[in-house]
């Protein structure tokens, strides 16, 4: 059986657009940091917001939902084949691409990387990061601790400020 999707109301669309303005860029940068792939980041954000629009008023907490969904989509994209219609990003000029940072993040385990980016870059509290990563607060502290240490080993003490 298929669950019928709600139709996005005008209010829901406005909410989604406002959320995109407020969070879209940071979300995409966070996914870039967490997964290291600009195409994955763009696709995950676009798909998550598109699904948010499709769901309309059904989503009770759009911000939490879209972050959670975008990261879930990104994980799927990371581990599987990329869809043919994936959004291209190569045309965007990047005057200051953070090569060193992304290379350092590559040295972290996937969960360490997600945790560090979500907590120290995106600013989510530990509890929320636990939700976003499907982990627990206790385990997350371990991942954060190790992720921080590894980043600082590679980038210096100021890597995480």
């Amino acid at each position: 059986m298929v669950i019928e999707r709600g139709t996005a109301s005008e209010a829901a669309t406005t909410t989604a657009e406002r959320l995109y303005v407020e969070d879209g860029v940071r979300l995409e940068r966070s996914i870039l940091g967490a997964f290291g792939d600009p195409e994955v980041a763009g696709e995950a954000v676009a798909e998550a917001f598109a699904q948010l629009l499709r769901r309309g008023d059904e989503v009770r907490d759009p911000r939490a939902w879209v972050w959670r969904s975008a990261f879930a989509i990104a994980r799927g994209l990371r581990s599987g084949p990329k869809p043919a219609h994936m959004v291209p990003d190569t045309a965007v000029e990047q005057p200051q691409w953070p090569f060193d940072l992304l290379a350092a993040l590559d040295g972290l385990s996937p969960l360490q990387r997600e945790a560090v980016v979500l907590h120290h870059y995106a600013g989510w509290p530990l509890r929320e990061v636990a939700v976003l990563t499907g982990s627990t607060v206790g385990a997350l502290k371990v991942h954060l601790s190790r992720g921080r240490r590894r980043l600082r080993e590679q980038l210096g003490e100021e890597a995480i400020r």
Partner: protein
Amino acid sequence: MTVLSDLDDVVVPDRWSQITDRATRPEVDLVTLDPGDRPGRRPAPAAAVLALVLLVAGVVASRSGRDETVTADTTPPAPGAVERDERLPLSAGVFEEPILVDDGIGRAALLGWIWIEILAWPGDPTWEDVDGSTRATHPDTRRTLTLSVVPDGDGWAVVALSGEIGIRPLLDDDARLAGFARLGPQSPEVDTVEVLEVTSPADPRPLPIRDWDDEAIELVDPIEAGAADSYLVVTRDERGEAIDVGGWAFGRPDRLDLDLDAVLSEPGVPDPISIPFVADVDLGGRLERPRRFTSVWPGVDAYLSPLEDRSALCLTLVEPDTSASRTCAYATDFNERGIKIGSQTEGEDPWFVLVVPESTSLGDLGDATVHPSGIVVAWTGGGTAQAVADRLQLVDGILGRGPGDPPEGAPTETTLDGAFAGFGHDEPITWSVPTRGSTSGMCENLQAEERITAHRLDRPSVVAADDPEVLGRVVAGPDGRVAVHSNCNPRPLHVGRTDSEGRLDVEPVTELGDFVQHDSLRFTPDGRLTVIRRVASEGFRAELVSLDLDTGAVTVLFDATTVLPGDPSALTDAAVLADGTLVVRAGRGITIGDVQVASTGASSFRTDGSDTVWVHVNGDGVQQFDARGRPIGSFHPDSGFVALSPTGRWQLLTPAVPLDEVSATSVLLRDGLEVARLDHPGEFAEAIADDGTVVLTDLETGSTRLVTQ
């Protein structure tokens, strides 16, 4: 300088028009869609899952000495090309080439777990093809399990399970599985599921599940439920009334953003309602009223209800002949695999009690323990299924005896690939071991490279043992001897010593039984070993046995049938005091000698190696008893947790509030008398050493510090 905020330099295009275009496109039919066209999806995992199952089965089969051949067709179906009702027959066998399944959660692992369960049955199970599924029948009990791997039209594999198997015989030999698992990539788009086979368990106990075949099963959108890789089914009868809720949720259950009460508040929903997989579904304080769920203790009904502030759940255990007893589980003790309802986190023998759904394994649970010298080991993680949980981790490593005083050369952080860490009595050493499958006693693909690792204060970590047949629970005795029992059953107990290089040289002593509850393994003060063993042929009847390491003599100290004739499997912990008094924790509570000192099955006890027993009933405080069961110590009704120093001299009590609210006071006692109250806002007092040093963990950062009294 490179910092995380360098991400702010990344130029991100405005995608809003792209998003709105995408959103207005007709949503693709989920059934007919080629999986390659769907974002976030991977190809049909049926073959991969099948391969995993066969791989696991093969490993176990090969380890058990069986020589079976590959008989299953593992050719991946072409995406979208397989008819929905086409089924792939399964057979036990050895898969020649390992295929890694990048699943990351417990779905595939669940199958492996069950498959291992089947292959762990004594003798050879009977394998039959039944309507395209494979049914295994236990050679002795005739228990069955049916498994089908069925690719459906959109490339997803749906695996249906039915039957009755002892997933967790350690806790409940009568554990049943009547559910299904859906295998597939994590995706927020999942909005349908087709349950291909869910049959009624042959369970004589009354269940509200009347007839699976006549019930519609409805999927609640998993992403709306708060976990992209989760789903929930609501089972309704032929009249459309919801009579049961179950399913699998692989996100944090306390984070499921699902108004379960709204689902269940429709007319006709019985209350309490049975939620067989409650720990998978509705934790998190979202319940308005108690729910009954399958108890891990046979004969004991269990209910879950939230605290008023919904920050924690209380577990109420109701025994038939006694009044209800209640204990609370802190919200932070929840995870996707179970509810931690009691623990002992210091001393030589850390343990915890979990209420888990029968079909899942342990997951991330934190714990800490302290060596008599003041060394602190804390860990999180663990898990018993290879694709489920993080590996066990030593959080803050080995700390010194005082704040800021780590011993030179000691590791400050180490990863422990196991679920247990134990301390020796006479040397500053900890042991860690891989313990996959530990709590059920099932072996799960032990790898040769896994090993017991010793961590010493005076030198870097050393490898102590690496024999998969030996790997398991390690305890160290007062005379320097170390005992190891494998995670697998049956396996012989090994005993030995550590040489000067830290290598553990052990020899097999004896096999204690067909099922040894290795987490009950402990040394008595006089150097004997005690452990609970279970007799599978007698319904996993439990008995506490003592082993004389010098003579090899095994003595039955306590037979659960003498006090639990209706449920001899309910013995969950036991210890021998210095004077020989037995302390027993079983379904009816805690008994010291002949005196029952606690009536709830959720209580825990600790001994300090002498004649004192500390009994902790969550929510009801802590009481100290002597070897005759007489209360001798302080009773602290407000305490929520007790930490006992290794010799028992120091006690640490913390308020009975959720962990996140631990910001005020911990009560410190010495010899049962209050000596101080510690104010440590934002920190959680975890353990106490014999010199009164308290371990405080910062709730936000996770950093640990020691406070010396």
